[in-house]
């Protein structure tokens, strides 16, 4: 193979572009001919560079905005005498709506307005329904009673010999006004003090006290106890 033939075949270096005999002859010639060897190396370099360029995909930073900008320019080039005022305004607004930032802002605005409306209406409906329920069926009074012995009551109690003996035994009359009996159910002072729970408390406070002594204490407390009553009716409306 001579140099002229070799230079013609150098361009067909990819697989399948020449036959095996031509490929062998070209390889033998290039091995022995420095000029063709250099020619082939230069061609392969160019081919690699082209392959690299092929792998590059061209991208724009903000393609949509660019497209819209181009479209706007195209629209602006339309002669004004062919558009009405309304049409021009609509076109401008549409153009403005095509700006992504404005579109997001509008989406937020629509969401806020619709949600706000729904929340306000639901709140009104709930308030009205709660009010109707309360007016139609008043809640039963919730009563929590606590009875506190006031200083005056304790002073009065301590004047009673029998009671004083009992309280001294229990050591319960030293701090005036500090004695408290709590109950979680409604009723009167007598109901509370006569309840099994209260009697149990009194028995515990005053171990060994006879039933009659407790009756006496109950009666005294009934007359002198200070009522502390927590009372509510309905939904906190006073």
């Amino acid at each position, binding site marked *: 193979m001579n140099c002229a033939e070799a230079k013609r075949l150098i361009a067909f270096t990819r697989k399948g572009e020449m036959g095996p005999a031509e490929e062998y002859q070209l390889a033998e010639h290039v091995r022995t001919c420095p000029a063709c060897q250099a020619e082939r190396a230069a061609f392969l370099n160019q081919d690699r560079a082209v392959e690299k360029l092929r792998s590059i995909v061209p991208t724009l930073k903000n393609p949509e905005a660019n497209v819209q900008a181009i479209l706007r320019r195209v629209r602006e080039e339309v002669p004004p005498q062919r558009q009405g005022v309304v049409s021009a305004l609509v076109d401008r607004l549409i153009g403005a709506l095509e700006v992504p930032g404005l579109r997001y802002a509008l989406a937020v605005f629509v969401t806020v307005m619709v949600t706000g409306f729904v929340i306000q209406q639901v709140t009104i409906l709930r308030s009205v329904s709660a009010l109707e329920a309360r007016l139609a069926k008043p809640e039963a009074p919730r009563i929590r009673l606590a009875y506190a012995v006031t200083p005056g009551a304790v002073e009065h109690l301590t004047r009673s010999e029998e009671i004083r003996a009992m309280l001294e035994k229990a050591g319960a009359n030293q701090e005036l006004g500090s004695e408290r009996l709590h109950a979680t159910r409604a*009723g009167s002072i007598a109901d509370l003090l006569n309840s099994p729970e209260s009697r149990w408390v009194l028995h515990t406070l005053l171990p060994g006290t006879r039933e009659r002594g407790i009756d006496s204490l109950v009666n005294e407390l009934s007359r002198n106890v200070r009522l502390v009553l927590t009372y509510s009716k309905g939904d906190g409306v006073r």
Partner: protein
Amino acid sequence: MKRYAVRPAMIVTLAAALSGCLEIETTTRVHTDGRLTRTVIVSGDTSDFSKIRMSMFGLDSGWTVLSDSMQHEKERKLTLQREFDGAESASRALAGIPMEKQGISIRLDKRFRWFTTLYRYEETWQKGYQLDRIPISAYLSPEEIQMLRAGDLKGPDSLLTEGQKRHRADLEKRGEEWFNRNTFEEIYLAFLDGVRTVNDSRLVPDTVLAAKERLYTAVTGNFKPPLTHSGPIIGEFAGVLKNPVVPRVLEAARPAFEKFDRAVDFMERLQVPGYASGVVMPGIITNTNGSSVEGNKVRWKDIKDNTFYEGYTMWAESSMVNWWAVVVTALVLVAIGALLVIGLVKKR
């Protein structure tokens, strides 16, 4: 002189004591711009009209008589109306005067919330009871007063539990004690001031102070139902103290006794059996402490029960839809939607 008109039984039942069947119904219409139109209808037997002074309820020449008619032979119905620029001018016009007029203050809050406007109306009645020497809280807890207001201990004994019966009896006892002590204290302190003014060694303040419980026992023991005007009470003072200086003391304390009697007269006249109040709010009623709601009108019945011994605030809240705001918003949303659709169509 009417004696024993202010009975201690009112402390528990809080019922009216004056005979007759005069009824007063007040309705306040709240306008969207904050103006108030207050209408008062007084109805009842013509003879009962003479027992009250209209000025006590804030009704004076500033009111317009809408109608004054006789419904049956002796039944009169008087309708008065007055328009106020706002809550402040209403409060000024309805402000109380001690022993002359029961004060009413009005407050109106308006909050704009784009789709809705929220209104809150408050009408506070000052208490009618004029004696303040001993607070009711010394004898009844706020919760007990609340129970009385709610009427939980009202009704026949047969409907109450044994405990409630005892509790009611206990409340009545303490209520009566407070009423008697409070009334007595007013006269007693006036008398004591009179003793100090006279400054006579035959009757010194210490003597009166030492005799306080004796005086109280004598007064409450001899009057059932007990204390009202000063006359019978100071008569008892003279009887217990048996001192020649007492007439001079009574003369020195006369202005205070007269003031006391005026207070009792005022309290007597305030006892109108049927007194209801209402408010017509803009929009839908969303919350209230009223006793009934009809449409956008809230009504409070028997408010005298609530306002006599303590001040009472009636309140109502309403919400009005701003349809113009809804329409504006809807138009904006439709316009945005239309622009988007047109834009899409043009793109194609």
